[in-house]
Structure formats: C-alpha cells, structure tokens
C-alpha cells in the first residue's frame, strides 16, 4: 500500500488526459419498497434512491464543461451504474458493464420527465419551485428478495482495477469514486465491510479510491451529512436496525479528502469537521459531485 503526504493527494483535476471514473451502486432489493412521505406525496425508498441516482448523473453532466470544438461535453470521465438485488446488473446499457463516457451518456437518456426543482428567482428574491423536463437514465425497480451489497462492491473493485489498467495515464488521475446508494440492509453473501475496505485500498498516484455512502431510509424525520464519528449516528438514528446499518455504512465510507473539504468550505462558507466521512443519511448526495475538482468556476459568493 502506497503512502502519501496528506497535502499531496487528491489534488488532480479531471481533464481529457487525466480522466476520472465514477461508479454508482444502487440498491434494488425488496426492502427499498418502504414508503417515504415527502410533502403531501408518498414515494418509496427505492424511488427516492433512483431519483438521487438520476440527480447524481445530472449533476455530473452539469459540472462537465462544454467543448468549444465539438459542441458536446468534454470527455472528462467515465460512469458506470450497477444495480444490486438478487444479482449485480449494469444499469446503463447492454455493454456488459463497461463504464460509459459522460459525453455519450449525456446525449442518451432513456427519457425525460417533468420534475420540480428549486430555483432562485431574482425578481421575487426567493427560491421558487419550477417544473422542468429532466433527463433520466435509470428506472425504478425493487423486486429482489436478496441484497447482494458485498457482490456489488466486489464487482466495482474489478471494474476499477480493469479501468486503471486499461490506460497508463489513468494512474495519474484523481482516484475513482464509488457512491453506494442503499437502505443499508444487507442479506447477501460475503461481508460488505471487507469488500469496501479492499476497494478503498486501490489507488492512483493521486490517492486511494474514494467510497461514499448514501443511506436512504423510510425514517425521514432525521438526516445527517458528513459525520465525523459513529457516536453522532447513534445520537441521530433512533431505530435500532437502522442505526446498525448506518454505522456499518459509515465504517465503509472514506474520509472526505482535505481538498474536497476546502471546496465545500468555499462553496458554502462552512467547514466540514476534520475527519468527516463521505456518509450521507437521508439527504441528496449530488452535493458530493460539486465538491470534486471541476476546474476554475465562478463562485456565487462573489455575487451576493
């Protein structure tokens, strides 16, 4: 295992020469059918997870700059979505689970649907809800009896390994990122915590692979982002089962690198605690994408 001075890692930006890899894991087990009440509508946990996943993809696309030469997105990263239930299935297309380039993905959603998004209305001076047609890539399913989370993580491990070996330049890239969206209940083979550890042991010259977790539950009364220790979770999660799952997912998650924490600070004028983990409980993981290095960009802080 390689070692780094902390200030030397996670400094790379994605670009054409040093492309990135994002792997999203989506829990599609039957337990994701738990109802969630949001506003006056009822959704299921799995619907929320699917929405979160589509949002993540939209967020990656919105962050990828446009290439002035082609009028398409710049070829900055590859993306793979694996669904897991009774088995692990690549969800984006039928290309046997090879990661797809973001620029191809952006042009080929499986459809568009109206969504309500919050936008800041300068005239009214407040946020208003606007209906927008948003592309989506993943449909909701939750019909499996098993949750093979460990297998999904092992599959992600192999994908990362193959992807790194496919091109030598990828060794110099920002390390691949795996985001696992789940309700935390695991009842398949193997030990997800061990599988998570081995993924996090993979590395590029810029640092170890990052594994982040997004824990969505039907207990929507509490939410938590980037906690520093498991005690915070114990205090915030009342249900005993959920608490155990949450603590497990917390243990599986990587620490947020200092460079990402710095960017979070610049975006929100707020710091993350030292050693904060990439664990999100009942919240939108799309913010994680904004913390990655996407090159120089205008900060809204200067326009307040």
């Amino acid at each position: 295992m390689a070692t780094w001075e902390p200030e030397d890692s996670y400094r790379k930006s994605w670009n054409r020469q040093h492309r990135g890899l994002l792997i999203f894991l989506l829990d599609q087990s039957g337990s994701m059918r738990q109802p969630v009440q949001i506003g006056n509508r009822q959704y299921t946990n799995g619907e929320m997870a699917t929405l979160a996943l589509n949002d993540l993809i939209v967020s990656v696309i919105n962050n990828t700059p446009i290439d002035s030469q082609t009028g398409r997105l710049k070829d900055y990263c590859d993306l793979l979505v694996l669904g897991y239930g009774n088995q692990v299935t690549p969800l984006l297309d039928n290309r046997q689970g090879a990661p797809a380039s973001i620029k191809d993905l952006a042009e080929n959603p499986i459809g568009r649907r109206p969504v309500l998004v919050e936008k800041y209305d300068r005239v009214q001076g407040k946020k208003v809800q606007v209906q927008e047609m948003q592309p989506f890539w993943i449909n909701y399913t939750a019909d499996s009896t098993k949750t093979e989370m460990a297998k999904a993580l092992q599959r992600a491990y192999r994908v990362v390994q193959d992807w790194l070996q496919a091109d030598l330049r990828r060794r110099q890239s920002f390390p691949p990122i795996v985001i696992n969206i789940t309700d935390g209940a695991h009842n398949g083979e193997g030990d997800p915590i061990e599988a998570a550890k081995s993924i996090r042991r993979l590395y590029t010259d810029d640092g170890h692979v990052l594994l982040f977790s997004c824990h969505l539950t039907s207990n929507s009364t509490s939410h938590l982002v980037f906690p520093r220790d498991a005690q915070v979770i114990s205090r915030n999660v009342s249900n005993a089962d959920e608490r155990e799952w949450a603590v497990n997912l917390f243990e599986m998650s990587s620490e947020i690198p200092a460079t990402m924490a710095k960017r979070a600070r610049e975006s929100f004028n707020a710091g993350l605690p030292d050693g904060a983990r990439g664990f999100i409980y009942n919240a939108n993981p799309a913010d994680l994408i904004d913390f990655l290095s996407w090159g120089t960009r205008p900060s809204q802080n200067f326009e307040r």
Partner: protein
Amino acid sequence: MAQPPAASTSGNTTNVALNVPILCVAIGVALAVAAEHLTSPPASSTPATNSFFGQFPHVASFAIVLITAAYALFELIRQGRMAWQQPALAPGICRSASFAAFLLGLISVAVSDTRSQSLLSTSLGIGLCVLALIGFLAITFLGPTEMVNQKPMHDPGQVGPYPADYFRPYSGSLPVTYDPDMSGVEAPLAQRKPRIDPSTLPPLFETDPLYSIPRPKVARSFSMVKGNDNPIASDDACVISDDETYFALCDGASGSSLPRPWATLLGQQWLKWPFQEIDAETLALWLQEPRERWHRWIQETWKWKIDERNQLIGEKPLSADVFRRTLQTGASSTFLGLLLNRENNSWHAAAIGDTCLFIFRGDRSGTLRPRFSFPLDSSAGFSDRPPLLTSNGNNVSTLAPYFRFKSGHWRRGDVLLMATDALAQWLLSQFEQQQTTWNILPSLTDPRRFAELVEKERQSGHMVDDDTTLVVIPL
C-alpha cells in the same frame, strides 16, 4: 414616395440572420422606386413600360421583393420557433420581426403607390408601419433586460455552518408524477461512427479573431495548454495594442462555457476603454459590449460552425440542451489590464481574480529581483473559486469591490511579467522558498525553453497542470 431606411442602422438592434432578408427587401424597394422613376418619368402615360426593357426593372424588383419577403417570412417562423425554445433570445428576435414588419409596410406603400392608386392598400401599409414602429419601440424600451435563471449556491446572507435547510431530507428534484412504468424512448448508448474522423480535420475557430494570438514586437508572450493540448484548447487570452502600451491577460474559467472568446472580448474592451478605477455602475456599462458580443458570437458564429462541422462529419447538430446550457451558465474569466505611459515612465494596472503582474528590477550587481506582485502576493492566496467577470447579467454591483488597482513608475531595465494563475502561484512559491529556477523568465525569448520549464515543473508537481500564459514586457 416612401424612402427605404438605410438597412445598416438595424445592425445594433437586430439579429444578423434577419438582417439579410431585411437588407434584400430594402434593396428590392429601392429598385422598385428607381424603376418607377426610370420607367415613368413625370408623365404617367408614356408607353415606356410596354417595352421589355422598360418592364424589366419592374419585374426584377418585384421578383426580388417577393422572394425576399418569402424568405423573411420563413426566417421569421424559424426564429420564432427558436425564440419559443430560447426565451432569452425572444426580445432580440421580436425587435427584428417588428423591424421587418416595418419594412414590409413600407414595401406595400411603395408598391401600391406605383401600381394602383388604391387608398386602402396605402393606408394599410402605413398602418402596418406605425404598428411595427410602436412594437419596436415598446420592446426596446419596455422589454425585459435581464434573464432570471441563475441559482445561487444558497440564500443570500447565509453564513456560518451548513445552512440548516440545505440538506433537507431530500433536497433533489422530485417528479411531478412518478410513473414507475415510464420507460421513455430506448436509446442505447450505441457508439455512433462519424463519416469522417473529426481529429483529421483542422480545429475550428483557428482563424476566428476571438481566438487570435498576439504577436508583439517588443514584448514576448508564451503559452502552454493544460495537458499539452492543442493551443486552440487554451482558455487564456492575451490582447496587446499595436503600440504595446495596453496589455490585457485574461484567464477564462475552465469550468464555465466557452471562456476563451469571453476572455478575448474583455481584453479588447480594456484596449477600448481602460479605467483608473471602477464603480458598479461603470462596470455594468463596461461589461455591456463584451456581454452582447459574446452572446452574439455563441448564437451566430459558434452554433453555426458546430452545426456545419457536425453535418460534414455526419454527426447530429448541436443539441438544444448544450446550447441552452451554454447561454444559461455563460462564460467567466479573470482579468488583468495593464496600461503603460511611455512619456512619464508610469504604469497602471487593474485586476480581478488571480492573474498576476510581477515587477522585476536589477539590483546593484545587475541581477533582476522581484519587487512585488499584484493582486496576489502569496502562493497560498490561490483557489479554484476566484472572483471572475461573468458574461451573464448577474449582480455586477457586488463584483466591483473585488477589483484591485495599482500604479507605479518604472526605470529603464525593469521587466514586467504578466502570468496566469498556475505560473503566478509557482513564481510566488519560488520566491517564498528562495529558489532561482524562475530567473530565466524575465529574459526568456525562446518558446521551447518556456515549454521545457513548464513541462518539467508540471511533471515534478511544483506547477499546477493548467493553461499557463506568460507575457514578458522589457522596459
């Protein structure tokens, strides 16, 4: 007789695509008027119009008027559809449309005057003209001035720890109606094979003035693109006046949309309108022209070129999503303007963002030493969210305070350096660590040596792999 207005006056307010038919219509009217004067001089019953040559100008001008009117109608419908999809373009298109309607009114006046003495069609034409003029003025003076489409990261005034409501239980987008069976149109990620490999074609915009690279005689400029990419991929823009007294170096933000032309436009604006100091109001005025030109360039040059290239290589035209996003997010750039007064040996600089100016002066032994840098003076001051000038009409008033100004005098033998962030940060850390690798820069003439240095420092991790531009100004 109605006189056609000079078509060139429409240039500022109307859309070029519509200006073409407008111009043609105007020419047609002029021809019709001329034809009438030629063929029916003062007496109206001369048989000149019966001869073929007498008839010809009439027929020709009518044909031109009809064809161009048809084309104008087609353009109007096409632009109308565009305006429907792109509300941001609507006011400009409406302006053009009303102007075109005004001209059509003029034609009908002209035509009715020559063919028949029908009072009805003349008054109809005049009515159309008046209505179109009212419409034009109304859009110009009462129409929308700014689009509301930017979402700030969080509510204004929000400080301290994470805003409590930022991470609500689910802060993402929610479907209005969730239909689990909604399958959409299946569009597999098939690898499309273009007819021609685009990498074999010359890069676009190489000859575009907004991508031009200055060739100063006394000063020297060097540039390296991130990842050693093609120079056309650089987001840095350097603009230098012919007499080499005005310099601007702007670093387009790689995370924004098409920053290079925007950066060039800012530099050009500095040459036209340098300032000692700037307040919010003046800044808004100063930015107005570059902003207009950037939007026009995207809509007219960029989109057109991309569509043309895509057609050539057998790709789909520019996607509406990308086009909308480009206009919505806009371009951003840092700005460093320098003004030299060669009469009293003084200089003045204005800056926003992290593009820096360095001054070197020889000590007693003749070795050049850095005197100071502006606007940043330590390598820790750099981040990837510097204040930037943006092409989209957000609140300019809050940007003005981020401008920095500095003036001074130079002596013979001084050297001024302008450097974009990666190089500026590297230089400052060199000074901080008392290293001397930098000392080849003030006397640098060979671009290959610059490339070697940048390459080496990037490899060793001392310099950030970003677009790197250096302007050396010996005095």
